[in-house]
Each structure stands twice: as C-alpha cells, then as structure tokens.
C-alpha cells in the first residue's frame, strides 16, 4: 500500500466557511453570573455554554461556526481542492444533508432535532477542548437558540454565535465543569 504523498499528509483541514469579519469590541458579553437556584441543575443538559482559556475571539467564533455548520449538515470543509465547493454557508451545497435533516424533522419531530443539535455541539466543542458550564434558562435564552423544525434567520444566528464566542473567552467560571 503506497503511503500518501508528503504534501497530502501535511495538508490541513480547511473550512469552507466564508469569513465573517467581526469587531469583538462590538459584540456584547452575555450575562453569565448567577446564584444557582434549586432546579437549575436539572436544566444543565439543555442550558449550557462553552469556555476555553487562552483562546481569542476569532478562534472561538470560528470553532462555534464550524460546529454549528457541521450539525446543520451544510458544506463545512473543502474537498482537498479537487472539486469545486463554493457553497459557503448555504443549504444548497449539501442537498443530501439538508434532505436528511428535513426528512428527519418530519419523521422524528422537533424534539429529537433539538436534542441532536445540543448533543452535536457538546461533542464538537468538547473535541475542541472547550469545557461546558451550566446556566439558568433565562440567561441562556439571551444568547442561544434551539433548532428543531423551525430554523433561525442567518443574521440572528450569527449574532448569537458571536455572543457565544464572547462567553467562551470570558474566563473560566466558578461553576462546575459539566460532563463532555
């Protein structure tokens, strides 16, 4: 079996996400401080955010966008340059995935889709080395969204993802690190 050419072995996984220039100073830092009330912990499976130290805003935002894109089933990665994939950030480029998602929506329902999104974000951000911390629902809803049968408008989605990136670099909280 032939070894891959050295150039190929060294090629880095490029993302197919169109760059979005953001001034981090203009992105509001969401409220993350709270006193844990009875019952809050019951919601941590759903309501959480990610944190990683020594990470800048652009890196965190790109990481969150990559995970968001991957769980939506849209074109996320380049294909080694062999095939044109100029579908940055659109559903059109991943018909297979989009159809799979749409049918799954219709068949399994919104709750399963929402749960899958949560699981995928946890998995993806976990592999990226982010820790996960719980929040009360009322704080969480101010910079997050759930995605089941109905989607989130792209502009609104990016605003929320940017706030999540801001939270991710805000420093390690005192709250307990949750399971992966």
């Amino acid at each position, binding site marked *: 079996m032939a070894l891959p050419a050295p150039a190929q*072995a060294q090629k880095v996984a490029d993302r197919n996400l169109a760059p979005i220039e953001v001034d981090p100073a203009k992105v509001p830092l969401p409220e993350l401080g709270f006193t844990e009330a009875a019952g809050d912990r019951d919601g941590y499976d759903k309501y959480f955010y990610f944190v990683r130290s020594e990470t800048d805003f652009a890196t965190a935002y790109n990481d969150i966008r990559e995970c968001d894109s991957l769980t939506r089933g849209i074109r996320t990665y380049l294909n080694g340059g062999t095939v044109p994939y100029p579908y940055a950030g659109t559903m059109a480029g991943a018909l297979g995935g989009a159809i799979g998602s749409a049918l799954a929506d219709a068949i399994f329902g919104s709750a399963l889709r929402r749960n899958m999104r949560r699981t995928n974000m946890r998995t993806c951000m976990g592999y990226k080395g982010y820790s996960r911390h719980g929040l009360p629902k009322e704080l969480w809803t101010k910079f997050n969204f759930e995605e089941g049968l109905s989607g989130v408008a792209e502009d609104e989605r990016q605003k929320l993802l940017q706030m999540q990136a801001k939270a991710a670099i805000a420093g390690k909280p005192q709250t307990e690190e949750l399971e992966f």
Partner: protein
Amino acid sequence: MRILMLISAAAAAFAAHAPAAAKPASSQQFKAGTAISLDPAKAYLLVRSPLNLDVKLLREARPDEVEAYKAERSAALEKARSKYARKLAGYERDIKAWNAMSANARAGQVKPERPVEPTDDNLAFKAIESDKFVTLWGGRVFDKPSQARLIAVDPGTYRLYGQMIEGNNGSMLGFCLCMGSVDFDAAPGRITDLGSFRYPLAEALRDKVKPSWNGLTPGKGGLTGMRVEPMRPADPVPASLASLPREAAAYRAAGKIDNFFGVQIDRLTALPGVLSYRRDEVVDERSGGAAAAN
C-alpha cells in the same frame, strides 16, 4: 413547506442532471452460504463485528469522476443561466408594467421580484459524494462463527463514514465519523480484510457495563462510538474464503468531512500508529501531520 422545497429542489437537481458519465458506487453483500469466486473487476471487503449495525462507507471519487462531475455541474450552471435569462426578460416586462400602474391599480397586487442570477457560488447542485456511499448491512452475516460480513464493491479508496440506519423513507439515524476517521484502499480481485468494527458505547449498553476500552472512557477519555481493530493473523476467517487472496487493510488517517445526512457527529476512536487527535485536529500518526479534510 421547507421540506417540500428541499425535496423538490433535490429531485430536480438529481433528475435534471442525471449523470451520463458518473458511476454511482455499487455493491453486493453476500448472504451466509453464498459460494464466492472473486470477480477481478470487483474488490471484496471482509469485516467482523459483534453487533448487527449498518455502516456507511464512502468511496473517494476517481479523477475521471471528478472531471465528469465538473462537466455536469458546468452544464447545470449553463442551463440555470438560460432559464434565468428567460425569467429576467419576464421580470423586466412585468416590472415595466408595474411601474406604469397607478397606486390604486397596484392595490392587492404583488410587486414583481427580480430573479436571482445563478452563479458558481449559489448554484444548487448535488455533492459529488451523493452517489458514492456504500452500505454494509450489519444484519447480513456471511459467516456466523466469525461474525464476518462480506461485500463486493467497486475498487477504490474508501472512508469509514459512520454507523447509521437508513429508514425506508430516506431518513437516517446514527452518527457520522465526520470529525476524524480512517480510509483504506480496496484492490480489485482480492479480499481486503478490515479486521473488526467495534462499538464501545453500544456494546457496553448491551452488556450493561460502563463503557471503557484499553484505559479509555467516553468523552474526554477518548473513547467514541466506534473503533476499528485492524486485522490480526489470529482473526477467524470464514472457511469458504480461506484459500482466496486476502490482505489486511492498510488504514490511514482521514480528516474531517461534512455531515451529509444530518445525523449525530462523532469521530473514530484513535487508532495507534494510524490516527490520533490534537484536540479536534486529525493527526496522521505516520507523518505526525494533520490529515486533510475530505
């Protein structure tokens, strides 16, 4: 409505651009007791597994298929542009009439919308991978004592894409190994022995134990939903295949890939000497470098 639009768009894309030159991946999985004689034009994959779970393999497009795909896509773009030109002419006629209308006449009417010009950037067209998937049916066991499955496929390079069940309505449930996996070459006229596919989490659930393997645990412990045990000389081989040419799959690290089916995402458990991870970066253990995204 969104679902219908997506399905319609997909159906149109697939039907209108039915490839003349593209070759969808084909496969034939053998039932127990089937007499096997190797077709020199086919590659044969042998794998053992303790669970009857379906696995998706993705064949890498060959250079001729890439060229055919590009040609198909160019033709589709050309067709979309022709269609756009007709729509644009209609729009210009309609907007002229709209502009000439009084405010009263416009009441209840919808202002004509300028059509979107199709470009290389926004063309809705199938992914080249769409017809390159092969399903290895977990329930179709070729040899019960060894728990082996045998499937004939087109020769080529295959990626272990994920474990998922396909419903008869096109739905998909399971996980992709989108954040890191392995690929291997399947040579014609011989059996490529993939060793064993193992499912640490599902197996632990079946055995009612906490999942762990080789010191690894789920989550940050490094154990994931699927792992590969490359072929070992002592692995059992179906008696009917014992005299046929067979070689161990030479696994290579495979980088990230898209979640084509919109399923859960995961990655293959690290495979010593082949595949490891630096956070989410997929590392080719043989070179120490990052593995390319597919």
